């Protein structure tokens, strides 16, 4: 389990086909290995086409477009760094969207992971009905990204929504939470936390990999539950916490549907739910400023790459990879 998280290609299966020497000169690859390579490429044809046509090609094109002014109707016009300069110096909505997204990620990801970990710990250890509970808690993460749930959310936190209906039972009169700039983002954060089931399932699988002999040994030595959690569970779980953290940060930075539906595509009220991707969508596909949208996309890539990099660097100080590393 320990180093199973490293997504490195080293593990690629080596099946060395012995090179057969033919006549003089350099060793030629054998007929068999040439046939194998030929077959391998054939199997990869769809993927190769996809890689160049809809991944690498567009990456290059988007990088180029980010230095142009392009609206789909006219030729792209080279403008150098203008898009980037405008972004950073004259575009308050860019900064707003960045701030909104940052708050969303910084608040909702740790909260979500805390819930996931807490529930995973409660569900571990041969609890009866484990799979029943796991299903109940997992279900929201399958539904959470859908338009239907976003519509529901809008109504739960609307002026005459579920929350206020419950509060009314206690004689409290609430307002609309989705139309209030101070609370609108919190409702989206809550929606993200609601989907803690997916990381919880990963935590549960991780917990199962901790040998029970560790706990037996610890309890013989007189370690209490808390002590065991601090000295066994938590350290051995850090690679999984790290994995979930990296994954959820990348994912939540790209959230779109919730903000689009709850704010009806505007990012409102007063841009308080203007997610970065919603702003990018607005710029690129509503205003057709495709060069500008490409610049926005590249800033997003740099931010996500930087965050992931920082995460990996920081992981040296808190992620425990056991002695085998």
């Amino acid at each position, binding site marked *: 389990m320990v180093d*199973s998280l490293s*997504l490195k*290609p080293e*593990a*690629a*299966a*080596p*099946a060395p086909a012995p090179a057969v020497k033919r006549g003089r000169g350099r060793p030629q690859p054998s007929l068999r*290995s040439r046939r*194998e*390579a030929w*077959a*391998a*490429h054939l*199997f*990869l044809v*769809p*993927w190769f086409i*996809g*890689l160049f046509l*809809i*991944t690498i090609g567009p*990456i290059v*094109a*988007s990088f180029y477009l980010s230095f142009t002014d392009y609206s789909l109707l006219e030729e792209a016009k080279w403008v150098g760094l203008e898009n980037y300069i405008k972004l950073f110096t004259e575009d308050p909505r860019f900064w707003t969207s960045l701030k909104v997204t940052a708050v969303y990620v910084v608040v909702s990801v740790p909260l979500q992971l805390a819930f996931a970990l807490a*529930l995973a710990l409660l569900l571990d250890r041969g609890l009866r009905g484990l799979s029943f*509970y*796991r299903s109940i808690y*997992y*279900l*929201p993460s*399958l*539904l959470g*990204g*859908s*338009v*239907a749930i976003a*519509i*529901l959310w*809008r109504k*739960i936190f609307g002026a005459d929504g579920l929350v206020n*209906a419950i509060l009314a*039972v206690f004689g409290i009169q609430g307002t609309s939470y989705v139309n209030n700039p101070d609370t609108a983002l919190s409702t989206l954060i809550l929606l993200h936390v*609601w989907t803690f089931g997916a990381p919880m*399932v990963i935590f549960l*699988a*991780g917990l199962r*990999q901790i040998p029970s002999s560790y706990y037996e040994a610890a309890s013989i030595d007189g370690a209490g539950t808390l002590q065991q959690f601090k000295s066994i569970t938590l350290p051995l779980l850090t690679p999984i916490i790290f994995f979930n953290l990296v994954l959820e940060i*990348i994912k939540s930075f*790209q959230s*779109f*549907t919730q903000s*689009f*539906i709850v704010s009806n595509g505007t990012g409102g009220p007063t841009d308080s739910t203007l997610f970065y*991707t919603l702003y990018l*969508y607005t710029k690129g596909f509503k205003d057709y400023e*495709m060069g500008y*949208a490409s610049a926005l*996309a*590249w800033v997003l890539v740099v931010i996500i790459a930087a965050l992931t990099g920082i995460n990996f660097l920081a992981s040296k100080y808190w992620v425990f990879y056991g002695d085998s590393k």
Partner: protein
Amino acid sequence: MATVSSRNPVLYRRRVTRGAKHLMLIGFGLVMLYPLLWMISSSLKPEELIFREPGLIPSEITFENYTQGWNALAHPFSYYLWNSALITILSVVGNLAACSLAAYSFARLNFPLKKLWFALMLGTIMLPLHVVIVPQYIMFSQLDMINTIWPLILPKFLAHDSFFIFLMVQFIRTLPRELDEAAAIDGAGYWRTFFRVILPLCTPALTTTAIFTFIWTWNDFFSQLLYLNNPDNFTVPVALRSFLDSSGESSWGPMFAMSIIALGPIFGFFLAGQKYLIRGMATTGLK
């Protein structure tokens, strides 16, 4: 039993804490599911009762919301369900075919620059969609494919979801190589080995891929919103969105009813394929 445990204080205490734990888990589960249950119950209430009753049991049951919602848009809702189903099914087929081909090659065959290609494949898993979406849109609009299903399904047939390639590679690596060798001795070529030996053994990974592809495509909003602007091509998420747009803060009952229908297939797949979903999550997360 009860007498034994009431006599034994340790057992008794353990029982009480276990009971308390279950109560807590059920209570929390109810809180988690309350919004969903409330939506279901609201969809069965007459419009004017929805927000007067926060409770779950409707005092009056009506299916009017369903009939009203079904016919609220330009086409009956079955039309959008069909559009969604078509895109989703083709996406599943595309992902299964293209990703398993690529995965077999990466997991079993040897070829020049394999490590480079494999690293590139892993790199694309984490690539934000937004960095390719603008040029992709331009490309598809130049090919006159806006408002068709092509921009949505073509990437699947080209193994664009490399996450699933990775999942299958991980799975194929766990299969014993002796199988391939035995097939080769029997005179099977790579294609036959893949098709007759590897693919049938991959059923769990293929099932996981199919279920995840189904759920993600069915839920997908961003690309469907982008590529489908004509109401004749709307899928369920885009149709729901336009429903919300056109009715503003009214007709919540019909909207809830259609939302539940939209969530239905996901719920069905969740019930049928839980095992694979959870195993898929756990193995890609851990292995």
